[in-house]
Protein backbone atom coordinates (compact mmCIF):
# COMPACT_ATOMS: atom_id res chain seq x y z
CA UNK A 1 0.00 0.00 0.00
CA UNK A 2 1.36 3.41 -0.87
CA UNK A 3 1.34 6.24 1.62
CA UNK A 4 -1.01 9.12 1.01
CA UNK A 5 1.11 11.49 3.06
CA UNK A 6 4.82 11.17 3.65
CA UNK A 7 6.66 13.36 6.13
CA UNK A 8 10.46 13.06 6.24
CA UNK A 9 12.69 14.84 8.72
CA UNK A 10 10.33 17.80 8.93
CA UNK A 11 11.61 20.74 10.96
CA UNK A 12 10.56 24.29 11.75
CA UNK A 13 12.56 26.99 13.42
CA UNK A 14 10.73 30.08 14.68
CA UNK A 15 13.58 32.37 15.67
CA UNK A 16 15.32 30.50 18.46
CA UNK A 17 12.37 28.18 19.05
CA UNK A 18 12.47 24.73 17.50
CA UNK A 19 8.72 24.18 17.00
CA UNK A 20 9.04 20.96 15.00
CA UNK A 21 12.13 18.78 15.02
CA UNK A 22 13.04 15.95 12.64
CA UNK A 23 9.47 14.68 12.35
CA UNK A 24 8.98 11.58 10.22
CA UNK A 25 5.73 9.71 9.72
CA UNK A 26 3.39 8.33 7.09
CA UNK A 27 -0.33 8.29 6.59
CA UNK A 28 -1.73 5.25 4.80
CA UNK A 29 -4.54 5.21 2.29
CA UNK A 30 -7.84 3.88 3.54
CA UNK A 31 -6.88 4.42 7.17
CA UNK A 32 -7.51 7.06 9.79
CA UNK A 33 -4.38 8.34 11.45
CA UNK A 34 -4.60 10.24 14.71
CA UNK A 35 -2.03 13.02 15.01
CA UNK A 36 -1.74 13.37 18.75
CA UNK A 37 0.12 15.54 21.17
CA UNK A 38 -0.48 18.03 23.93
CA UNK A 39 -1.33 21.63 23.09
CA UNK A 40 1.74 23.44 21.81
CA UNK A 41 3.51 20.25 20.77
CA UNK A 42 3.76 21.39 17.14
CA UNK A 43 0.73 19.66 15.61
CA UNK A 44 -0.78 22.71 13.95
CA UNK A 45 2.60 23.98 12.75
CA UNK A 46 3.32 20.56 11.22
CA UNK A 47 -0.04 20.44 9.46
CA UNK A 48 0.43 23.99 8.17
CA UNK A 49 3.87 23.03 6.82
CA UNK A 50 2.30 20.07 5.02
CA UNK A 51 -0.16 22.45 3.38
CA UNK A 52 2.36 25.07 2.33
CA UNK A 53 1.01 27.73 4.68
CA UNK A 54 4.12 27.75 6.87
CA UNK A 55 7.53 27.48 5.24
CA UNK A 56 9.54 24.34 5.93
CA UNK A 57 12.94 24.81 7.61
CA UNK A 58 14.09 21.21 7.07
CA UNK A 59 12.81 18.03 5.52
CA UNK A 60 9.95 17.26 3.17
CA UNK A 61 6.19 16.75 3.29
CA UNK A 62 4.58 15.21 0.24
CA UNK A 63 1.28 13.86 -1.01
CA UNK A 64 1.90 10.91 -3.32
CA UNK A 65 5.38 12.31 -3.93
CA UNK A 66 4.29 15.89 -4.62
CA UNK A 67 4.49 18.92 -2.39
CA UNK A 68 1.19 20.68 -1.76
CA UNK A 69 2.11 23.65 -3.97
CA UNK A 70 2.94 21.28 -6.81
CA UNK A 71 -0.55 19.77 -6.86
CA UNK A 72 -2.84 20.90 -9.64
CA UNK A 73 -5.95 22.36 -7.98
CA UNK A 74 -4.82 21.08 -4.56
CA UNK A 75 -8.25 21.24 -2.91
CA UNK A 76 -9.38 18.47 -5.28
CA UNK A 77 -6.69 16.18 -3.82
CA UNK A 78 -6.19 17.32 -0.26
CA UNK A 79 -9.03 18.69 1.83
CA UNK A 80 -7.99 20.59 4.92
CA UNK A 81 -9.99 21.96 7.82
CA UNK A 82 -7.63 23.95 9.99
CA UNK A 83 -8.05 25.70 13.29
CA UNK A 84 -8.02 29.49 13.32
CA UNK A 85 -9.29 29.63 9.76
CA UNK A 86 -12.04 32.11 9.48
CA UNK A 87 -14.78 33.35 7.21
CA UNK A 88 -15.79 36.78 6.05
CA UNK A 89 -18.71 37.68 8.36
CA UNK A 90 -20.95 39.20 5.68
CA UNK A 91 -20.46 36.29 3.27
CA UNK A 92 -23.15 33.61 3.07
CA UNK A 93 -22.12 30.00 3.70
CA UNK A 94 -23.00 29.06 0.13
CA UNK A 95 -20.97 31.94 -1.33
CA UNK A 96 -17.94 31.02 0.77
CA UNK A 97 -17.94 27.56 -0.80
CA UNK A 98 -18.59 29.01 -4.25
CA UNK A 99 -15.45 31.15 -4.07
CA UNK A 100 -13.40 27.98 -3.56
CA UNK A 101 -15.37 26.00 -6.14
CA UNK A 102 -14.96 28.69 -8.81
CA UNK A 103 -11.21 29.00 -8.28
CA UNK A 104 -10.70 25.23 -8.39
CA UNK A 105 -12.96 24.22 -11.25
CA UNK A 106 -15.37 22.36 -8.99
CA UNK A 107 -18.94 22.12 -10.35
CA UNK A 108 -21.44 24.38 -8.58
CA UNK A 109 -23.76 21.46 -7.79
CA UNK A 110 -21.09 20.20 -5.44
CA UNK A 111 -21.65 23.25 -3.18
CA UNK A 112 -25.22 22.23 -2.31
CA UNK A 113 -24.10 18.62 -2.05
CA UNK A 114 -21.42 19.38 0.55
CA UNK A 115 -23.72 21.67 2.53
CA UNK A 116 -26.20 18.81 2.65
CA UNK A 117 -23.45 16.42 3.72
CA UNK A 118 -22.50 18.50 6.77
CA UNK A 119 -26.10 19.42 7.57
CA UNK A 120 -25.96 23.12 6.73
CA UNK A 121 -28.50 23.17 3.88
CA UNK A 122 -31.00 25.21 5.87
CA UNK A 123 -28.50 27.96 6.64
CA UNK A 124 -26.84 28.00 3.22
CA UNK A 125 -28.04 31.56 2.59
CA UNK A 126 -27.23 32.82 6.05
CA UNK A 127 -24.26 35.12 6.64
CA UNK A 128 -21.41 33.29 8.38
CA UNK A 129 -21.07 36.09 10.95
CA UNK A 130 -24.26 34.74 12.52
CA UNK A 131 -22.94 31.16 12.74
CA UNK A 132 -22.21 29.36 16.01
CA UNK A 133 -18.81 27.76 16.59
CA UNK A 134 -20.26 24.34 15.75
CA UNK A 135 -21.74 25.62 12.49
CA UNK A 136 -18.43 27.22 11.54
CA UNK A 137 -16.70 23.93 12.25
CA UNK A 138 -19.16 22.19 9.91
CA UNK A 139 -18.62 24.82 7.22
CA UNK A 140 -14.89 24.32 7.61
CA UNK A 141 -15.42 20.63 7.05
CA UNK A 142 -17.63 21.36 4.03
CA UNK A 143 -14.79 23.48 2.59
CA UNK A 144 -12.40 20.57 3.04
CA UNK A 145 -14.82 18.14 1.38
CA UNK A 146 -15.78 20.39 -1.51
CA UNK A 147 -13.23 18.99 -3.95
CA UNK A 148 -14.03 15.40 -2.98
CA UNK A 149 -10.36 14.91 -2.04
CA UNK A 150 -8.71 11.52 -1.51
CA UNK A 151 -6.81 12.91 1.47
CA UNK A 152 -8.38 14.72 4.41
CA UNK A 153 -6.49 16.73 7.02
CA UNK A 154 -8.57 17.77 10.00
CA UNK A 155 -7.11 19.91 12.77
CA UNK A 156 -9.00 19.40 16.05
CA UNK A 157 -12.30 18.97 14.16
CA UNK A 158 -14.31 18.10 17.25
CA UNK A 159 -13.78 21.53 18.84
CA UNK A 160 -17.09 23.31 19.23
CA UNK A 161 -19.18 20.33 18.17
CA UNK A 162 -21.98 19.08 20.41
CA UNK A 163 -22.04 15.37 21.40
CA UNK A 164 -24.30 14.51 18.46
CA UNK A 165 -21.95 16.41 16.19
CA UNK A 166 -18.96 14.51 17.51
CA UNK A 167 -20.77 11.20 17.00
CA UNK A 168 -21.64 12.26 13.47
CA UNK A 169 -18.03 13.28 12.84
CA UNK A 170 -16.77 9.85 13.95
CA UNK A 171 -19.15 8.03 11.64
CA UNK A 172 -18.23 10.40 8.86
CA UNK A 173 -14.48 9.93 9.27
CA UNK A 174 -14.86 6.13 9.36
CA UNK A 175 -16.95 6.37 6.20
CA UNK A 176 -14.21 8.34 4.46
CA UNK A 177 -11.64 5.69 5.33
CA UNK A 178 -14.00 2.94 4.19
CA UNK A 179 -14.12 4.66 0.79
CA UNK A 180 -10.36 4.34 0.62
CA UNK A 181 -9.53 7.91 1.58
CA UNK A 182 -6.69 8.76 3.92
CA UNK A 183 -7.58 10.84 6.95
CA UNK A 184 -5.14 12.62 9.23
CA UNK A 185 -6.94 13.98 12.27
CA UNK A 186 -5.21 15.91 15.02
CA UNK A 187 -6.26 16.06 18.62
CA UNK A 188 -4.78 16.79 22.00
CA UNK A 189 -7.03 14.14 23.53
CA UNK A 190 -6.52 10.52 22.61
CA UNK A 191 -9.92 9.67 24.09
CA UNK A 192 -11.56 11.98 21.55
CA UNK A 193 -10.29 9.98 18.58
CA UNK A 194 -9.82 6.59 20.22
CA UNK A 195 -12.92 5.18 18.55
CA UNK A 196 -12.07 6.64 15.16
CA UNK A 197 -8.40 6.07 14.41
CA UNK A 198 -6.51 3.05 13.10
CA UNK A 199 -3.04 4.45 13.55
CA UNK A 200 -1.52 6.98 15.88
CA UNK A 201 1.32 9.43 15.44
CA UNK A 202 2.21 10.86 18.82
CA UNK A 203 4.37 13.95 19.11
CA UNK A 204 5.64 15.91 22.05
CA UNK A 205 7.69 19.12 22.04
CA UNK A 206 7.88 19.01 18.26
CA UNK A 207 9.39 15.53 18.16
CA UNK A 208 7.97 12.19 17.21
CA UNK A 209 7.34 10.00 20.24
CA UNK A 210 5.74 7.04 18.54
CA UNK A 211 4.03 5.94 15.35
CA UNK A 212 2.09 2.74 15.70
CA UNK A 213 -1.34 1.20 15.35
CA UNK A 214 -4.02 1.90 17.90
CA UNK A 215 -4.19 -1.84 18.62
CA UNK A 216 -0.50 -1.89 19.45
CA UNK A 217 -0.88 1.12 21.71
CA UNK A 218 -3.80 -0.54 23.47
CA UNK A 219 -1.68 -3.62 24.17
CA UNK A 220 0.66 -1.41 26.20
CA UNK A 221 -2.08 -0.53 28.65
CA UNK A 222 -1.45 -3.72 30.66
CA UNK A 223 1.90 -2.58 31.95
CA UNK A 224 2.28 -0.89 35.31
CA UNK A 225 -1.12 -1.90 36.64
CA UNK A 226 -2.14 -4.17 39.42
CA UNK A 227 -4.85 -5.36 41.76
CA UNK A 228 -6.23 -3.03 44.38
CA UNK A 229 -7.21 -4.60 47.70
CA UNK A 230 -9.14 -3.00 50.55
CA UNK A 231 -9.09 -4.86 53.81
CA UNK A 232 -9.57 -4.14 57.56
CA UNK A 233 -6.70 -6.59 58.23
CA UNK A 234 -3.96 -4.81 56.35
CA UNK A 235 -1.14 -5.65 58.76
CA UNK A 236 -1.96 -9.40 58.78
CA UNK A 237 -2.31 -9.47 54.98
CA UNK A 238 1.05 -7.71 54.59
CA UNK A 239 2.62 -10.30 56.82
CA UNK A 240 1.37 -13.31 54.83
CA UNK A 241 2.11 -11.61 51.49
CA UNK A 242 5.74 -11.22 52.50
CA UNK A 243 6.00 -14.99 52.66
CA UNK A 244 5.08 -15.43 48.96
CA UNK A 245 6.93 -14.16 45.86
CA UNK A 246 4.44 -11.38 45.04
CA UNK A 247 5.15 -7.67 44.87
CA UNK A 248 2.92 -5.31 46.82
CA UNK A 249 2.80 -1.76 48.09
CA UNK A 250 0.55 0.05 50.52
CA UNK A 251 -1.48 2.85 48.93
CA UNK A 252 -3.74 3.90 51.83
CA UNK A 253 -4.60 3.18 55.49
CA UNK A 254 -6.58 0.09 54.45
CA UNK A 255 -5.58 -0.42 50.82
CA UNK A 256 -2.67 -1.99 49.01
CA UNK A 257 -1.83 -2.87 45.43
CA UNK A 258 -0.51 -6.26 44.39
CA UNK A 259 1.52 -6.80 41.22
CA UNK A 260 2.14 -10.01 39.35
CA UNK A 261 -0.83 -11.98 40.60
CA UNK A 262 -4.25 -12.93 39.25
CA UNK A 263 -7.54 -12.27 41.11
CA UNK A 264 -8.19 -16.02 41.07
CA UNK A 265 -4.94 -16.77 42.83
CA UNK A 266 -5.43 -13.99 45.37
CA UNK A 267 -9.06 -15.04 46.12
CA UNK A 268 -7.90 -18.48 47.18
CA UNK A 269 -4.91 -17.04 49.00
CA UNK A 270 -7.10 -14.70 51.07
CA UNK A 271 -9.63 -17.47 51.86
CA UNK A 272 -6.81 -19.78 52.91
CA UNK A 273 -5.58 -17.21 55.43
CA UNK A 274 -9.13 -16.20 56.37
CA UNK A 275 -8.56 -12.53 55.61
CA UNK A 276 -11.63 -10.32 55.29
CA UNK A 277 -11.75 -8.33 52.03
CA UNK A 278 -13.93 -5.31 51.30
CA UNK A 279 -12.72 -4.80 47.72
CA UNK A 280 -10.79 -6.68 45.08
CA UNK A 281 -10.31 -4.66 41.90
CA UNK A 282 -8.24 -5.52 38.85
CA UNK A 283 -6.96 -2.13 37.69
CA UNK A 284 -6.55 -1.40 33.98
CA UNK A 285 -4.59 1.49 32.62
CA UNK A 286 -6.53 3.54 30.07
CA UNK A 287 -5.19 4.54 26.67
CA UNK A 288 -5.18 8.07 27.98
CA UNK A 289 -2.75 7.01 30.72
CA UNK A 290 -0.40 5.56 28.14
CA UNK A 291 -0.75 8.68 26.05
CA UNK A 292 0.00 10.92 29.00
CA UNK A 293 2.93 8.78 29.97
CA UNK A 294 4.28 8.97 26.43
CA UNK A 295 3.86 12.69 25.97
CA UNK A 296 5.14 13.88 29.32
CA UNK A 297 8.33 12.46 30.78
CA UNK A 298 9.83 11.44 27.44
CA UNK A 299 12.07 13.84 25.64
CA UNK A 300 13.89 11.35 23.48
CA UNK A 301 11.88 9.81 20.66
CA UNK A 302 11.00 6.15 20.86
CA UNK A 303 12.04 3.92 18.02
CA UNK A 304 9.45 4.18 15.28
CA UNK A 305 7.31 1.09 14.91
CA UNK A 306 6.69 -0.47 11.51
CA UNK A 307 4.07 1.15 9.32
CA UNK A 308 0.73 -0.61 9.54
CA UNK A 309 0.28 -2.56 6.36
CA UNK A 310 4.00 -2.29 5.67
CA UNK A 311 5.68 -0.70 2.67
CA UNK A 312 4.49 -1.74 -0.77
Amino acid at each position, binding site marked *: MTSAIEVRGLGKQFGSVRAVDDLTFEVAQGRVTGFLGPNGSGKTTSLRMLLGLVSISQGTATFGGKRYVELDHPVRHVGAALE*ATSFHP*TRRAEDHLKTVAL*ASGIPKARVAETLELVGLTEVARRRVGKFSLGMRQRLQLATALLGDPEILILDEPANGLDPQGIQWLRTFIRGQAAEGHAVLVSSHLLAEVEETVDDVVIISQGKLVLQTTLADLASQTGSGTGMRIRTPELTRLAGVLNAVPVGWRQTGPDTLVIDGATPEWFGHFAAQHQIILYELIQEKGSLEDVFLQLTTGFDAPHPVGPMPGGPA
Partner: protein
Amino acid sequence: MIAVLRSEWLKLRTTSIPWLLSIIALVITGLLILLYFVNKGSNGGPHDHATFGPPTPDIPHTTQQLRNLLGTSVGIYVFALLLGVLIITVEFRHKTVTTSFLTTPHRTRFVGGKVLIAVITGAALGVIVLAGTLLIGGITLSAKGGSFSSLVHQLGAVAPGLILVYALMAVLGVGVGSLLTNQVAAIIVCLGWFLILENIIGGIWNGTVKWLPSGAAAAASNVSSGRNDVGLFNWWQGSLLILVYGLVFAALGSILLARRDIT
Protein backbone atom coordinates in the same frame (compact mmCIF):
# COMPACT_ATOMS: atom_id res chain seq x y z
CA MET B 1 -8.17 33.30 -15.60
CA ILE B 2 -11.90 33.83 -16.01
CA ALA B 3 -12.47 31.36 -13.15
CA VAL B 4 -10.05 33.25 -10.90
CA LEU B 5 -11.77 36.53 -11.75
CA ARG B 6 -15.22 35.12 -11.02
CA SER B 7 -14.02 33.76 -7.69
CA GLU B 8 -12.37 37.06 -6.77
CA TRP B 9 -15.43 39.04 -7.79
CA LEU B 10 -17.66 36.80 -5.69
CA LYS B 11 -15.30 37.31 -2.76
CA LEU B 12 -15.37 41.07 -3.22
CA ARG B 13 -19.06 41.55 -3.81
CA THR B 14 -19.94 39.55 -0.70
CA THR B 15 -18.15 42.16 1.41
CA SER B 16 -19.35 45.72 1.88
CA ILE B 17 -16.14 47.13 0.34
CA PRO B 18 -17.16 47.90 -3.27
CA TRP B 19 -20.58 49.25 -2.31
CA LEU B 20 -19.41 51.42 0.55
CA LEU B 21 -16.46 52.85 -1.40
CA SER B 22 -18.66 53.64 -4.42
CA ILE B 23 -21.16 55.51 -2.28
CA ILE B 24 -18.54 57.50 -0.37
CA ALA B 25 -16.63 58.32 -3.58
CA LEU B 26 -19.87 59.50 -5.24
CA VAL B 27 -20.86 61.67 -2.29
CA ILE B 28 -17.43 63.30 -2.14
CA THR B 29 -17.41 63.80 -5.92
CA GLY B 30 -20.77 65.55 -5.59
CA LEU B 31 -19.48 67.78 -2.82
CA LEU B 32 -16.36 68.65 -4.81
CA ILE B 33 -18.48 69.60 -7.85
CA LEU B 34 -20.67 71.89 -5.75
CA LEU B 35 -17.52 73.40 -4.25
CA TYR B 36 -16.20 73.92 -7.77
CA PHE B 37 -19.27 75.96 -8.69
CA VAL B 38 -19.20 77.89 -5.44
CA ASN B 39 -15.63 78.84 -6.30
CA LYS B 40 -16.98 79.90 -9.70
CA GLY B 41 -14.86 77.43 -11.54
CA SER B 42 -11.72 79.31 -10.73
CA ASN B 43 -9.59 76.30 -9.96
CA GLY B 44 -9.08 75.82 -13.65
CA GLY B 45 -6.09 75.93 -15.88
CA PRO B 46 -4.32 78.59 -17.87
CA HIS B 47 -7.44 79.73 -19.75
CA ASP B 48 -9.12 80.86 -16.57
CA HIS B 49 -9.14 84.51 -17.41
CA ALA B 50 -10.22 84.16 -20.99
CA THR B 51 -13.32 86.27 -21.39
CA PHE B 52 -14.90 85.90 -24.73
CA GLY B 53 -18.63 86.34 -25.15
CA PRO B 54 -21.40 84.58 -23.27
CA PRO B 55 -21.65 82.50 -21.18
CA THR B 56 -20.46 84.57 -18.28
CA PRO B 57 -16.93 83.96 -17.00
CA ASP B 58 -18.02 82.36 -13.70
CA ILE B 59 -19.42 79.37 -15.53
CA PRO B 60 -16.91 76.82 -16.76
CA HIS B 61 -16.77 77.03 -20.52
CA THR B 62 -13.18 76.78 -21.65
CA THR B 63 -11.87 73.40 -22.68
CA GLN B 64 -9.64 73.07 -19.64
CA GLN B 65 -12.37 74.22 -17.23
CA LEU B 66 -14.78 71.67 -18.60
CA ARG B 67 -12.15 68.97 -18.46
CA ASN B 68 -11.34 69.90 -14.88
CA LEU B 69 -15.02 69.68 -14.00
CA LEU B 70 -15.34 66.25 -15.60
CA GLY B 71 -12.12 65.17 -13.96
CA THR B 72 -13.18 66.22 -10.47
CA SER B 73 -12.85 62.65 -9.22
CA VAL B 74 -9.27 62.28 -10.47
CA GLY B 75 -8.36 64.35 -7.44
CA ILE B 76 -9.83 61.68 -5.21
CA TYR B 77 -7.96 58.78 -6.79
CA VAL B 78 -7.39 57.69 -3.18
CA PHE B 79 -10.67 55.77 -3.34
CA ALA B 80 -9.35 53.56 -6.10
CA LEU B 81 -6.15 53.16 -4.07
CA LEU B 82 -8.19 52.16 -1.02
CA LEU B 83 -10.24 49.73 -3.11
CA GLY B 84 -7.03 47.92 -4.06
CA VAL B 85 -5.74 47.99 -0.51
CA LEU B 86 -8.99 46.56 0.86
CA ILE B 87 -9.25 43.87 -1.83
CA ILE B 88 -6.14 42.23 -0.46
CA THR B 89 -5.98 43.23 3.23
CA VAL B 90 -9.55 42.08 3.94
CA GLU B 91 -8.28 38.50 3.51
CA PHE B 92 -5.80 39.00 6.32
CA ARG B 93 -8.17 40.93 8.54
CA HIS B 94 -10.74 38.13 8.52
CA LYS B 95 -8.18 35.33 8.15
CA THR B 96 -9.82 34.08 4.97
CA VAL B 97 -6.32 34.07 3.52
CA THR B 98 -5.82 30.53 4.87
CA THR B 99 -8.60 29.23 2.64
CA SER B 100 -7.33 31.34 -0.25
CA PHE B 101 -3.78 30.00 0.07
CA LEU B 102 -5.06 26.43 0.35
CA THR B 103 -6.97 27.01 -2.87
CA THR B 104 -4.16 28.93 -4.59
CA PRO B 105 -0.88 27.95 -2.91
CA HIS B 106 1.24 29.97 -5.35
CA ARG B 107 1.34 33.33 -3.60
CA THR B 108 2.33 35.23 -6.74
CA ARG B 109 -0.71 33.79 -8.47
CA PHE B 110 -2.81 34.91 -5.51
CA VAL B 111 -1.52 38.49 -5.85
CA GLY B 112 -2.03 38.21 -9.62
CA GLY B 113 -5.70 37.39 -9.08
CA LYS B 114 -6.04 40.41 -6.83
CA VAL B 115 -4.36 42.65 -9.43
CA LEU B 116 -6.79 41.42 -12.08
CA ILE B 117 -9.89 42.07 -10.00
CA ALA B 118 -8.44 45.44 -8.94
CA VAL B 119 -8.00 46.53 -12.58
CA ILE B 120 -11.60 45.68 -13.39
CA THR B 121 -13.30 46.98 -10.25
CA GLY B 122 -11.01 50.03 -10.19
CA ALA B 123 -12.08 50.86 -13.73
CA ALA B 124 -15.71 50.25 -12.75
CA LEU B 125 -15.32 52.67 -9.84
CA GLY B 126 -13.92 55.21 -12.35
CA VAL B 127 -16.97 54.74 -14.57
CA ILE B 128 -19.29 55.17 -11.59
CA VAL B 129 -17.72 58.42 -10.35
CA LEU B 130 -17.52 59.72 -13.92
CA ALA B 131 -21.20 58.99 -14.47
CA GLY B 132 -21.93 60.72 -11.17
CA THR B 133 -19.84 63.71 -12.24
CA LEU B 134 -21.60 63.93 -15.59
CA LEU B 135 -24.98 63.80 -13.88
CA ILE B 136 -24.35 66.19 -10.97
CA GLY B 137 -21.97 68.45 -12.90
CA GLY B 138 -24.18 68.46 -15.99
CA ILE B 139 -27.32 69.36 -14.07
CA THR B 140 -25.59 72.12 -12.11
CA LEU B 141 -23.96 73.46 -15.26
CA SER B 142 -27.25 73.52 -17.17
CA ALA B 143 -29.00 75.17 -14.23
CA LYS B 144 -26.37 77.92 -14.27
CA GLY B 145 -26.89 78.45 -17.99
CA GLY B 146 -23.85 76.54 -19.16
CA SER B 147 -23.75 74.08 -21.99
CA PHE B 148 -24.27 70.43 -21.10
CA SER B 149 -23.33 69.29 -24.58
CA SER B 150 -19.97 71.05 -24.41
CA LEU B 151 -19.32 69.12 -21.19
CA VAL B 152 -20.21 65.86 -22.88
CA HIS B 153 -17.96 66.94 -25.71
CA GLN B 154 -14.93 66.76 -23.41
CA LEU B 155 -15.78 63.25 -22.26
CA GLY B 156 -13.55 61.70 -24.91
CA ALA B 157 -10.53 63.61 -23.59
CA VAL B 158 -11.06 62.88 -19.90
CA ALA B 159 -12.90 59.55 -19.57
CA PRO B 160 -10.32 57.07 -20.92
CA GLY B 161 -7.56 58.57 -18.80
CA LEU B 162 -9.66 58.84 -15.67
CA ILE B 163 -10.89 55.26 -15.92
CA LEU B 164 -7.34 54.12 -16.56
CA VAL B 165 -6.11 56.10 -13.53
CA TYR B 166 -8.70 54.43 -11.32
CA ALA B 167 -7.81 50.98 -12.63
CA LEU B 168 -4.09 51.57 -12.14
CA MET B 169 -4.49 53.18 -8.71
CA ALA B 170 -6.39 50.07 -7.60
CA VAL B 171 -3.41 47.99 -8.78
CA LEU B 172 -1.11 50.25 -6.77
CA GLY B 173 -3.44 49.68 -3.81
CA VAL B 174 -3.06 45.90 -4.15
CA GLY B 175 0.69 46.44 -4.20
CA VAL B 176 0.59 48.52 -1.03
CA GLY B 177 -1.77 46.00 0.61
CA SER B 178 0.43 43.04 -0.26
CA LEU B 179 3.34 44.81 1.42
CA LEU B 180 1.34 46.01 4.40
CA THR B 181 -1.17 43.28 5.10
CA ASN B 182 -2.41 44.95 8.26
CA GLN B 183 -5.57 46.65 7.03
CA VAL B 184 -5.60 49.56 9.44
CA ALA B 185 -1.91 50.29 8.88
CA ALA B 186 -2.34 50.16 5.10
CA ILE B 187 -5.33 52.52 5.16
CA ILE B 188 -3.51 54.98 7.43
CA VAL B 189 -0.47 54.97 5.15
CA CYS B 190 -2.62 55.60 2.06
CA LEU B 191 -4.66 58.38 3.65
CA GLY B 192 -1.56 59.88 5.25
CA TRP B 193 0.13 59.92 1.88
CA PHE B 194 -2.87 61.35 0.07
CA LEU B 195 -3.94 63.95 2.63
CA ILE B 196 -0.60 65.05 4.03
CA LEU B 197 2.66 63.78 2.56
CA GLU B 198 1.85 64.30 -1.10
CA ASN B 199 0.83 67.92 -0.43
CA ILE B 200 3.93 68.61 1.60
CA ILE B 201 6.30 67.07 -0.94
CA GLY B 202 4.55 68.71 -3.90
CA GLY B 203 4.39 72.00 -2.05
CA ILE B 204 8.08 72.12 -1.18
CA TRP B 205 9.51 70.78 -4.43
CA ASN B 206 7.32 71.85 -7.35
CA GLY B 207 9.41 69.81 -9.73
CA THR B 208 8.36 66.58 -8.04
CA VAL B 209 4.63 67.02 -8.71
CA LYS B 210 4.76 65.23 -12.05
CA TRP B 211 6.35 62.23 -10.38
CA LEU B 212 3.74 62.04 -7.65
CA PRO B 213 0.64 59.84 -8.04
CA SER B 214 -1.62 62.93 -8.15
CA GLY B 215 0.50 64.55 -10.86
CA ALA B 216 0.63 61.34 -12.86
CA ALA B 217 -3.13 60.91 -12.43
CA ALA B 218 -3.79 64.45 -13.64
CA ALA B 219 -1.52 63.93 -16.64
CA ALA B 220 -3.15 60.61 -17.50
CA SER B 221 -6.62 62.12 -17.61
CA ASN B 222 -5.81 65.53 -19.21
CA VAL B 223 -6.88 67.34 -16.07
CA SER B 224 -5.11 70.08 -14.19
CA SER B 225 -3.72 68.80 -10.89
CA GLY B 226 -4.85 71.93 -9.09
CA ARG B 227 -1.31 72.82 -8.14
CA ASN B 228 1.44 74.47 -10.08
CA ASP B 229 1.44 72.12 -13.01
CA VAL B 230 5.14 72.36 -13.61
CA GLY B 231 5.70 70.26 -16.67
CA LEU B 232 3.28 67.40 -16.09
CA PHE B 233 3.89 64.31 -18.15
CA ASN B 234 1.63 63.57 -21.09
CA TRP B 235 -1.21 61.09 -20.65
CA TRP B 236 0.64 57.91 -21.53
CA GLN B 237 3.71 58.79 -19.52
CA GLY B 238 1.50 59.52 -16.53
CA SER B 239 -0.37 56.22 -16.95
CA LEU B 240 2.85 54.30 -17.32
CA LEU B 241 4.23 55.89 -14.18
CA ILE B 242 1.24 54.77 -12.09
CA LEU B 243 1.44 51.30 -13.60
CA VAL B 244 5.13 51.06 -12.74
CA TYR B 245 4.45 52.16 -9.16
CA GLY B 246 1.69 49.56 -8.87
CA LEU B 247 3.66 46.68 -10.35
CA VAL B 248 6.79 47.45 -8.31
CA PHE B 249 4.75 47.42 -5.11
CA ALA B 250 2.86 44.26 -6.13
CA ALA B 251 6.11 42.50 -7.04
CA LEU B 252 7.72 43.44 -3.73
CA GLY B 253 4.55 42.39 -1.92
CA SER B 254 4.52 39.02 -3.71
CA ILE B 255 8.09 38.35 -2.70
CA LEU B 256 7.41 39.21 0.93
CA LEU B 257 4.15 37.25 0.93
CA ALA B 258 5.88 34.17 -0.46
CA ARG B 259 8.06 34.00 2.65
CA ARG B 260 5.29 34.71 5.05
CA ASP B 261 4.08 32.04 7.48
CA ILE B 262 0.30 31.91 7.76
CA THR B 263 -0.32 30.72 11.30
